[in-house]
């Protein structure tokens, strides 16, 4: 009766707030709000205070360390609610009920007390109210209690037999996808879930379309073969694809790449490709490899490519330049800091070898070794990663022939090296011989580099590599 009166009063107040029917306006409004809240709560579900259960060893206080839920979240029985810590012991508190979290009684790092309320959970009114909510939970819950609580009614639909099967296998019903009517969880769903967990061979569950409406709890589910005989199976079944799109934010190295490549877009690229006969270089490297090994250095082809590039840049310095933002000035860089693209776990990084113009092939090899080991350990510093003036990308170690590399600003040129293939070629006498062929793809900034310059540089670089002895003449 009392509630009725408040309700009718409140509706009036809502529409015309000025018409207060009591002397103490503020008091009525305050109590009205309170009662209104409780009235509406009763119609939704009962709020139960879930108390912090006994930790053991006579502990009475713990520190709240992490919340796994927030107000408004829905939880199922056995879902983790929070993590508390007491004297070197970390305790996961799980929910006793299905419902919605209405209040968290502690904030992070606050002291929580055993036996006092931890969270308020609103239990769905239509499912009935659990009667033991004010008793401190005594862990662990006994077998009978499990079944008792489960049968009481939950958000997840499943028969008692299915629930028992789930409980025996320590499976949370909330984690199982139900394929029955109204997303009901069937025995086959539990078996499927287990099969995924254990990778064991279990009888395959029938496809969603031919699942009967409700399995009877007392019968053993028939083997799928039998079922197939009873129900006519269409020849081609539509494949049910249950994959979902996944969206994640762009972070870390990818974010950096987005930035660099977007800046590179402003550069008008042109490409120039060629093929290099490395037969002589391959032989030379075989001869020099053991010598380098005695000095503790692993000798690849890259040091040769890098040194040859530097010799080429001495003749065509515009390829080692930088164009300013406003395209008013070109800076010819004195140092040849040649970058080497590296593929690491995190993605693409480009450390550079500094001052190649004054380094020997051996010194370049040594430096490359250092950069490679730092790169694979993820320990390259900013000094190694910045200040590059020209870049070579040896994508051929992964595969491919021709490529279309993207210039790394503020540089103006880049070369991508394909893999070395053994191919038939004609020599000077018109005979076919086995040649070690590698393709190179250059990209350059067409605002300051023209095709002829790129071509001449490439020819010079090619001549050094095809006839390594010629490098000796120009080595500084």
């Amino acid at each position, binding site marked *: 009766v009392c509630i009725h009166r408040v309700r009718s009063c409140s509706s009036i107040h809502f529409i015309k707030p000025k018409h207060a029917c009591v002397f103490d306006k503020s008091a009525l409004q305050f109590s009205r709000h309170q009662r209104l809240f409780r009235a509406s709560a009763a119609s939704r579900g009962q709020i139960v205070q879930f108390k912090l259960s006994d930790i053991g060893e006579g502990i009475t206080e713990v520190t709240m*360390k992490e919340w796994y839920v927030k107000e408004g979240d829905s939880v199922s029985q056995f879902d983790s609610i929070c993590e508390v810590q007491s004297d070197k012991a*970390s305790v996961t508190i799980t929910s006793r009920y299905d419902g919605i979290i209405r209040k968290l009684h502690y904030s992070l790092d606050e002291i929580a007390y055993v036996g006092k309320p931890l969270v308020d959970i609103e239990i769905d009114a239509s499912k009935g109210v659990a009667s033991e909510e004010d008793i401190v939970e005594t862990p662990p819950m006994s077998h009978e209690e499990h079944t008792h609580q489960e049968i009481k009614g939950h958000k997840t639909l499943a028969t008692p037999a299915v629930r028992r099967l789930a409980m025996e296998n320590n499976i949370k019903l909330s984690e199982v996808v139900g394929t029955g009517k109204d997303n009901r969880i069937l025995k086959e769903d539990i078996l499927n879930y287990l099969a995924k967990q254990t*990778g064991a061979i279990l009888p395959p569950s029938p496809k969603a379309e031919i699942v009967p409406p409700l399995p009877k709890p007392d019968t053993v589910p028939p083997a799928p073969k039998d079922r197939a005989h009873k129900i006519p199976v269409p020849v081609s079944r539509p494949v049910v694809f249950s994959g979902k799109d996944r969206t994640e934010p762009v972070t*870390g190295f990818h974010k950096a790449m987005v930035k*660099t490549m977007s800046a590179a877009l402003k550069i008008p690229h042109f490409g120039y490709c060629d093929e290099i006969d490395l037969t002589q270089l391959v032989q030379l490297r075989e001869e020099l490899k053991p010598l380098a090994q005695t000095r503790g250095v692993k000798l690849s082809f890259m040091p040769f490519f890098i040194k040859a590039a530097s010799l080429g840049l001495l003749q065509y310095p515009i390829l080692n330049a930088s164009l300013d933002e406003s395209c008013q000035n070109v800076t010819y860089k004195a140092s040849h800091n040649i970058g080497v693209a590296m593929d690491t776990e995190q993605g693409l990084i480009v450390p550079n070898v500094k001052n190649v113009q004054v380094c020997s092939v051996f010194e370049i090899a040594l430096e490359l070794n250092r950069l490679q080991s730092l790169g694979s*350990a993820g320990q390259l*510093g*900013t000094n190694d990663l*910045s200040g590059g003036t020209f870049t070579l990308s040896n994508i051929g170690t992964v595969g491919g022939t021709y490529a279309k590399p993207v210039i790394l600003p503020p540089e103006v040129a880049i070369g991508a090296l394909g893999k070395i293939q053994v191919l038939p070629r004609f020599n000077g006498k018109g005979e076919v011989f086995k040649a070690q062929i590698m393709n190179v793809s250059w990209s350059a900034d067409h605002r300051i580099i023209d095709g002829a310059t790129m071509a001449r540089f490439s020819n010079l670089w090619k001549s050094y590599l095809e006839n390594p002895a010629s490098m000796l003449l120009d080595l500084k």
Partner: protein
Amino acid sequence: MVIQSSLKNCLQLCCILRTSKAGFRSTTSGGLIIESISNDVYQNLAVEDWIHDHMNLENKRVLFLWRNSPAVVIGRHQNPWQECNLRLLRQKNIKLARRRSGGGTVYHDLGNINLTFFTTRKKYERMENLKLVVKALKALSPKLDVHVTERYDILLDRQYKISGTAAKLGRTTAYHHCTLLCNADKFVLSSVLKSPYEGLKSNATPSVPASVKNLFEEDPSLTCEMLLDAIAEEYAKQHQIDNRITLINPADETVLPGISSKTKELQTWDWVYGKTPKFSVSTCFNMVYKGSVLDVKVDLDVKHGRIEVCNIDLPEQWLPPALCSELVKSLTGRKFCPKETTTVATTLSSVCPLDNELHSRWNLLCENMMMLM
């Protein structure tokens, strides 16, 4: 006498898992002693998680024996920057792991043994477990002066810590694990467990530093194997089970289904670093540049291991202000990690062209920023 069984016996573990209602039908009624064949800290921690999540320990208990190659293990709610020298760890290739139990930071290497006692939550009793260990030690080497303190440490000669304890309690099961120093590298231990990071303010659980000693120093005849055998024997005797150690391979999915995803999770950045409770860094450092000394003040708020708020105070005009604000803006939201800072720094320097002078100043600032991480 200890008989070590092969992996075939691990299938019994499988049976124990599956027929949870039936309980156990193996001969090791009431208990099981298992030893890991792996020295990988993540794999071994994953085994603990697996047993905690999947085994029904009603009327049963498990003792898990394991050793790790060099690793630092921090407690569930700790701050790795506060607890250890991350730079040194990276240099020496020492792994960093965060366990799920509480407590403080420890250093593991092959000279340290780890023991985990699994029981139901009701039977969780740390003191009993530690007293068992002490009893085993005294049986092995009667002259040893070892005892258990109120803080669940084991002390040697009343002053040196040889064992630290931590525990994890779940809904139905609980575990208590502890370390035991046999002949670990004390030099590495003390250098990695010393944090060089200044100006950190956090509510994370702090570790209580202690002087340590190896049992080997007291009794040179002792080895890790001897300790493991002695403790297994005492455990078997006390709980009336077969003294038989079953070897377990933490990489075997057939015996431990789902273990590899647990191992992977323990290695993710989000778990190891991202679970650090919110903390702030407020520090000054000096940079020496071309004969002059510059004061730089840095203030950072780090949440979930990522920089939430960043403030860098530099001498005026030492670097273009636009670049500085870009740096601060780019660092916000990034992982508090030197690799990420390097990426940010190099990208910015390539996108905004700098002359040599500015470039070296930029590099100097970024190198110093990375030292904080």
